[in-house]
């Protein structure tokens, strides 16, 4: 391992993509993702990355160019955020359905209107069902590590699915953090050349992207579902191997003082680190609280989640997105669904907070936990609670 360096997370992503020996980058600028593609453009311009950089005219074309590049077997990367992810929407389904191993970092951002460049998880939740493998990260090191893991998982011939790496816009994308970059020789060994099984090439003509009449469409989609579920095994193996080589260990559901804790908070993304500070303080005061963090968003880690919360009495889920007119937090809905059939399960309380870039302080997390405990004891007429919003 090389030394730790202080570096902006977006720039570090560019450096990691360089280490991954990417072939094609197709990207369009959008805040708060811009620093990632700016740095990559600079690396390409200086000849430090031997890649084609396609400065497309929209995110729709960014992902479309990624389809073409991945289809010929090139290692393909892009990055986007918020509205950009929404403009890509229909193309995202194609990338996963046609099994193209594209890797994309998403600097999570709120959605218009009103316009907001700041972070939340509205963009992620809108692309939840696009068939991508989706992984949440909490700090710069995790993002860098996952650039290598994502290409390795995506290009595994048993997987061949695109991977989204989620990082919170600004709160993570724009901070300077100490990050360790792995030795290049180790990266090269961990991440061999992309060997796409049936690339577009005149030597062996293949037809890609046929249309499916009703007689075959359901089978095609079921095969995709089976494939995405099966990718979990490869993801776990990848993380295990990565841990053995690089010393950083990852799992689908991360736990922090959660064993035997009566009250659990569940978070996703960089706010988890703030939540840890609150948990530390409360535990110092003798409170029986712990934290679980959802890392693997798709495929959803049902078993791991059930195991992580089965001994708790109360589970407070924090969402950073609204499902308008619905049950509140999309993550909480999924957690409830995962626990519904369990004989032993905690009471689940849903909070939505931190949307459009609004901070949640350690003190706020304490308040959320305390309110959550009260609601779980006394009940609430609301499907979910909104926290930190003036009414």
């Amino acid at each position, binding site marked *: 391992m090389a030394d730790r360096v202080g570096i902006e997370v977006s720039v570090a992503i560019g450096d990691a993509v360089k280490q991954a020996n990417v*072939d*094609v980058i*197709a990207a369009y600028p959008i805040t708060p993702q811009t620093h990632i593609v700016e740095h990559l453009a600079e690396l390409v311009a200086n000849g430090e990355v*031997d*890649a*084609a950089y*396609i*400065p*497309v*005219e*929209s995110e*729709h*074309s*960014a992902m*479309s*160019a*990624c*389809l*073409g*590049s*991945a*289809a*010929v*077997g*090139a290692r*393909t990367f892009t990055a986007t955020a918020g509205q950009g992810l929404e403009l890509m929407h*229909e*193309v995202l389904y*194609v990338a996963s359905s*046609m099994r193209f191993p594209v890797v994309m970092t998403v600097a999570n951002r709120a959605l218009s209107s009103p316009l907001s460049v700041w972070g939340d998880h509205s963009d992620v939740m809108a692309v939840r069902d696009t068939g991508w493998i989706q992984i949440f990260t909490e700090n710069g090191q995790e993002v860098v590590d996952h650039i290598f893991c994502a290409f390795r998982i995506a290009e595994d011939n048993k997987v061949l699915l695109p991977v989204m790496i989620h990082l919170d816009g600004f709160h993570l994308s724009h901070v300077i953090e100490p990050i360790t970059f792995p030795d290049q020789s180790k990266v090269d060994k961990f991440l061999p*050349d992309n060997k796409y099984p049936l690339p*577009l*090439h*005149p030597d*062996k*003509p*293949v*037809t*890609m*992207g*046929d*249309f*499916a*009449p009703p007689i*075959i469409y359901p089978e*095609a989609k079921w095969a995709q579902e089976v494939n995405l579920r099966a990718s979990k095994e490869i993801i776990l193996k990848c993380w295990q191997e990565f841990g053995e080589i690089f010393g950083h260990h990852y799992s689908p559901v991360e736990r922090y003082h959660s064993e035997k804790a009566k009250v659990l908070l569940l978070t996703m993304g960089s706010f988890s680190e703030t939540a840890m500070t609150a948990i530390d303080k409360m535990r110092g005061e003798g409170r029986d609280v712990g934290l679980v963090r959802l890392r693997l968003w798709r495929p959803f880690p049902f078993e791991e989640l059930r195991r992580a919360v089965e001994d708790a009495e109360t589970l407070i889920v924090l969402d950073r997105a609204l499902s308008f007119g619905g049950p509140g937090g999309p993550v909480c809905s999924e957690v409830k669904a995962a626990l519904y059939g369990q004989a032993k399960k905690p009471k689940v309380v849903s909070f939505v907070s931190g949307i459009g870039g609004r901070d949640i302080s350690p003190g706020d997390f304490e308040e959320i936990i305390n309110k959550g405990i009260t609601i779980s004891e006394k009940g609430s007429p609301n499907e979910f609670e909104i926290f930190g919003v003036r009414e």
Partner: protein
Amino acid sequence: MQNYGVYVPRLVTKKDIFVSGHRACIGCGEALAVRLVCKALGQNTIIASATGCMEIVSSPLPTTSWKVPWIHTLFENTAAVASGIESGLKMLMKKGRIAQQDITVVAMAGDGGTSDIGLQALSGALERGHNFVYLCFDNEAYMNTGIQRSSSTPYGAATTTSPAGKVSIGQVSWKKNMPAIAAAHNIPYVATACPSYPFDMMDKVKKAAATPGPAYVHILSVCPTGWRCPTDLAIKLGRLAVETGIFPLYEVENGKYKLNFDFPELKPVTAYMKLQGRFRHLSEDIIEKIQKRVTADYAELKERAVEG
């Protein structure tokens, strides 16, 4: 011309890339154009196709009509997909992961996929200068979804979304000049073609493929279904479109216009229009208006071609 029928077929390869068994309508001018274009392109080709007639007729799972690598993803993104293919191949060859080889990257779309929904992606790809060929097969409406008007539908034509009615003549806007838009990107090669002039079309496609950088060929493809004409008229109508000056065949090479077929006297537009049900409702004064416009546009093009 005596033994035309005997010798001409020998000038074209018998080897087909777009093969029979597809489900195009009877008399489809577009399927004919695609077949001939593919003969000109040859085996070292990768095709990205937009959603549309040619995609739907050629690729119902689990069958295919394509003997070259072919990919369809969406409607409006073909030029962007081709950008990715071209860039990917370039890098893989540079890094020695695939052999150095001259592979023609082709994007194909209809007039809707080109002049309407795909215009932005096309403009981006032309402006970035990718080495690829873009072929627009123009049948002058959204035929695949059932004859709806596009910006490429000619003035006065009745379609299902520009129907002729008591207070409407049908399409009320003039056909978008897509080749001029392509040429405005200052790309090295733009051409118009029609399968009624097969050798001219195939030569242009070969020229486009040999051009380094982006090339755009706009191919008029007669659609008997949508144009409401007998199914044996695809060739005749293509010729009449050219002979009336409605669809002149020309090239724009590095900004220089060249008219490939000129006529001492253009046939009247009615010779073309009267054979098609989509123009049946038009009154004489509207036809006169169209005639004036065609004459003027043709004169302007000719002038540009003389200037070079």
